[in-house]
Each structure stands twice: as structure tokens, then as C-alpha cells.
């Protein structure tokens, strides 16, 4: 499965368009890592626990999108976008969406 965030796959020709595919996940941030993050907050800078948590969530959202694309017979997803929105206090939704296509 090829993913790009531009309209085409460079070097390949798009044969068929399947339309929008998407994958999302909602994660609560207070996950036990909050205590460590609170300590780290004293000196500022990167909170590695949260970075990893969000990376895992984004990988999960992407894999759900890829699974959906595979189901409809696509072999690439173009124009992929990521968005993050907070749906509730302490929980955020990560959404990945794009256009499923068939390339040569």
C-alpha cells in the first residue's frame, strides 16, 4: 500500500479512483503516563510519553484507513490528511483520511 499526501503517486499512473477512505481512533491521555509527564512538566520540553502515545494512535488510525482501502481493492491512498481534535476533556480524536486509488 502506497501512501502519499499529494494528488498523485509520482512515477505511477492512477487507473481508478475509489473515493474517500478514513480511519480514526479516540484516546484518553491520562493513561498512567500522566504522573511522569507531570514531573517532566517542571523543566519543560518534550513529554516523550505523550509523543509515543499520539504516534501509536496515529499509526492505529492510519492502519484502519489502509484496511478500508484494501477492502475496496485499492493499492494506494493519495492526498492523505491527518487531523486532531479534542472531543472531550482529556481525550482527543485522531483522524486519517485520503482518496483510495488503483495505480499501475
Amino acid at each position, binding site marked *: 500500500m*502506497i*501512501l*502519499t*499526501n*499529494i*494528488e498523485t*503517486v*509520482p*512515477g505511477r499512473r492512477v487507473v481508478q479512483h475509489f473515493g474517500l477512505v478514513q480511519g480514526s481512533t479516540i484516546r484518553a*491521555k491520562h493513561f498512567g503516563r500522566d504522573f511522569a*509527564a507531570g514531573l*517532566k*512538566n*517542571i*523543566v*519543560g*520540553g*518534550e*513529554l*516523550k510519553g*505523550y*509523543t509515543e502515545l*499520539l*504516534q501509536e494512535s*496515529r499509526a492505529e488510525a492510519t492502519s484502519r484507513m489502509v484496511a478500508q482501502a484494501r477492502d475496496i481493492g485499492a493499492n494506494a491512498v493519495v492526498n*492523505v*490528511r*491527518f*487531523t*486532531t*481534535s*479534542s472531543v472531550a476533556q*482529556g481525550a*482527543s480524536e485522531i483522524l486519517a483520511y485520503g482518496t483510495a486509488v488503483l495505480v499501475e
Partner: protein
Amino acid sequence: MTIELILGLGIPLVLILIGKFVGASIERKHFENIAEREARFQGQPAFSIKQIDAPYPIQSASLASGSVVVSVDHFKRFVSGFRMLVGGEVRSYTSLIDRARREAVLRMKESQPDADAYLNTRLETATISSTNGNEGMGTIEVLAYGTAVHYDSRQ
């Protein structure tokens, strides 16, 4: 009475001083580290446009992404409190977000270290939590993503 006073003033003061010295030294080291890694990736630029005049035909493309979550220390928060009174640029926060953005772009490049260029690079900023739920910034996430392309250099 005195114990309350010591606790009431002492703990915030200690936290602010830790932020001032430890936080500032971590930030300085991080900027040095960023500059060094940026120099290493000089030949592999990240573009915000979708099409470039590539010197060779593009052989393959894939998604590259990198992210970082940062938070402010107590000294920056304290300084910004004064800044909120008079207005103007909050430099202590500017440097933190600048650090986070450059780090995110570097992580994007490091996720596909052998790519020749990164097209359509997007930077997204999301607030994870605010300071006390009422004002200022607390924790933010910066995500950088783009399409990593490899040139066909055999020709």
C-alpha cells in the same frame, strides 16, 4: 503561619528557578542538537509545494511523518504572565514552539532518511491541554508530514 508562608512562596519559587536554569540549559542543548541534525539533512530539502522540477525522474513515493509533544516550564509560564499584562510577543513561548516544529520536521526526515526530497510538507499544531484549563498554553503537539520521494538516479 511561617510554614504556610514558606510553602506558599517557596515551592513556586523553587519551580520557577528550576525552570530558569535546568529548562534553559536543556533548551540550549536541544537547539545545538537541532542545528547539527539540520546541517546533516541539508541536501534533502522539505518543500511545501506538491510538484518540483526534479533533476531525475521520481522512482518511488511514500508518506513520512514525525511528531513531538512539548510543554512549558514554570519559568516560561511565570514570564508569560507578565507579558500578558503589557502585550507583545511572548518570546519564551515562541522559542519553545520553534524548537518543537524544527524537531518535528527533523523526525519526519529521519523516518525516511534516504529520501531525496519531501513534498507537500504540512505542519499541524494541536493543543493537548492548557495550563490550568483557563488560560495560556500547556501542552501542545506538533506534527509534520509529507511525501518522501526517491529519485531514479541510474539515468
